[in-house]
């Protein structure tokens, strides 16, 4: 109870500090009607860096496990499908905010291999949701210059969704600065095994020798090879669960883990900033002594 109260108060103080103080620092001159000096720099197309965050210490790659859609729907008296819809909307807002803050890569765990075990209706609803959202957001991704990649097994997903995925990847492949990676039918263990198979195939083709197989080569065969920064700097998991649930097992070795009790559809801008503030306040040593 006390920790919740302190979190609320720290958030309130942050809001007061960031919203009201710039206003109090503005000087209005009635004589010559100068514009208000905001006291913060603003570049068109970028989000003002919130107080308490340093732009130069932003993570390059943020991963998110979007947990809590079903519980959110239950609490709101809605259907599970509506919970997933709200979750999808939240993901778009989350990615947009991250990109505006200077984060280059955002990975989201949309559907795990284990999720196939859910009720068939829910699974079909999710597949249809992915297709609808990807199709409807292609123009948005193009206008915002966001590259979209989908990683995962992809063998079991419907043909129509596969087609939409290819269309979206093709339409956005030339964009370099912002990268949204969606993990659909993804499993961290599958990723590692897939890398093993890929190495074998290359070995058969004579492209690599046995002695060439090391960590660097192995990493290049993982499904995250589509990005320059395969290892996330920060992983956010919502809804209070404190585990990584088979997501990016290899890649998460030195990732900062942030577990939030908030359900995913409620994970708004303030929560994102809270996670980033927590990340920037940590002393990361990557296993070495500094």
């Amino acid at each position, binding site marked *: 109870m006390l920790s919740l109260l302190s979190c609320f108060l720290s958030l309130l*103080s942050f809001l007061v500090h960031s919203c009201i103080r710039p206003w*109090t620092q503005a*000087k209005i001159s009635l004589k010559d009607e100068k514009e208000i000096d905001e006291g913060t720099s603003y570049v068109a197309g970028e989000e003002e860096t919130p107080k308490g965050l340093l732009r130069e210490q932003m993570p390059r790659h943020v991963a998110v496990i979007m947990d809590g859609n079903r519980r959110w729907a239950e609490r709101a008296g809605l259907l599970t499908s509506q919970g997933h819809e709200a979750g999808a909307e939240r993901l778009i807002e989350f990615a947009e905010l991250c990109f505006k803050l200077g984060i280059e890569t955002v990975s989201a765990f949309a559907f795990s291999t284990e999720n196939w075990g859910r009720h068939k209706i829910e699974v079909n609803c999710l597949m249809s949701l992915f297709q609808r959202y990807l199709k409807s957001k292609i123009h948005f991704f193009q206008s915002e210059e966001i590259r979209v990649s989908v990683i995962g097994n992809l063998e079991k997903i419907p043909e129509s969704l596969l087609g939409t995925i290819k269309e979206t990847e093709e339409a956005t492949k030339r964009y370099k600065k912002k990268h949204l990676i969606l993990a659909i039918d993804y499993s961290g*263990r599958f990723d590692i095994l897939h890398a093993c198979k890929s190495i074998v195939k290359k*070995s058969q083709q004579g492209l690599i020798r046995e002695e060439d197989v090391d960590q660097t080569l*192995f990493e290049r065969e993982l499904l995250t090879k589509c990005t320059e920064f395969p290892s996330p700097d920060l992983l956010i998991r919502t809804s209070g669960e404190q585990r990584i649930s088979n997501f990016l097992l290899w890649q998460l070795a030195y990732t900062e883990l942030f577990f939030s009790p908030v359900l995913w559809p409620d994970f708004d801008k303030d929560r994102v900033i809270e996670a980033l503030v927590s990340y920037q306040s940590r002393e990361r040593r990557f296993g070495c002594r500094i």
Partner: protein
Amino acid sequence: MDFNDPMLALSSSIGQIGDFGLDLVWRFIHIVVTLCLIVSGIFELVESYAISLGLIQKYSSIDIEKLKCLAVVVDIEAARDVSKVIELLRWLTTIGVKQVGVFDSQGLLKKSKDMILEMVPRSVLLQETGENNISPDSIALEFISSFDNKEAVVKAANILLQKYLKSIHPENGEGENVFTESHLNEALRVVGECVHVPDLLLVYGPVRSHLGFPAWRLRYTEIVHMGSLKYMRYGSLLKAIHKFTGVRQNYGV
């Protein structure tokens, strides 16, 4: 023109009073937040000692059977103070945990394993004893480092590669059957790695990261950040384990 000067002075004064007032509000909120955090910290400290003394009923009996394998990640700085690690392991023995994997990225604890095994009562090395031969009153310890993470998987991948190439008709894709999770588990065992999946991972250090703990084993492991090893408390340890026993996992379903 003259009328504007008093107006300007008035608005300037109002602005300054407003500034001062808001500054006061900001500092007041700051004090309140700081006090709340202090109170929260004291509360946690008192709770921790109350748990240690057995004053809180619900922590007196923990269903330890649910915790088959526990792993502890220790920051490299903390790993240099082996006495703290030994104390932690003694606490875990008292609680009744049967199998503990201790990890530090540089393998410092691996180098001190003989001393640790000697100082922790009824402790045995997991690799020597085997999972099924642990006696009821002893604790099996495993010492892990970053070398057991990615390097081990790469070596295991090489073993699978050799196995695939040796299979009778690799060109027909029949050898693809060597690439399953159980095959990689087996290959990891051949390399000398343990594949026991910890149920709970306790991270002691300044960073909320598992610092390179073997990735293959972390699929559904609960991860709890415990803070600095230097300031570890028995009550906090008991609380973390108790909380784990109440967790319900859906495993994605």
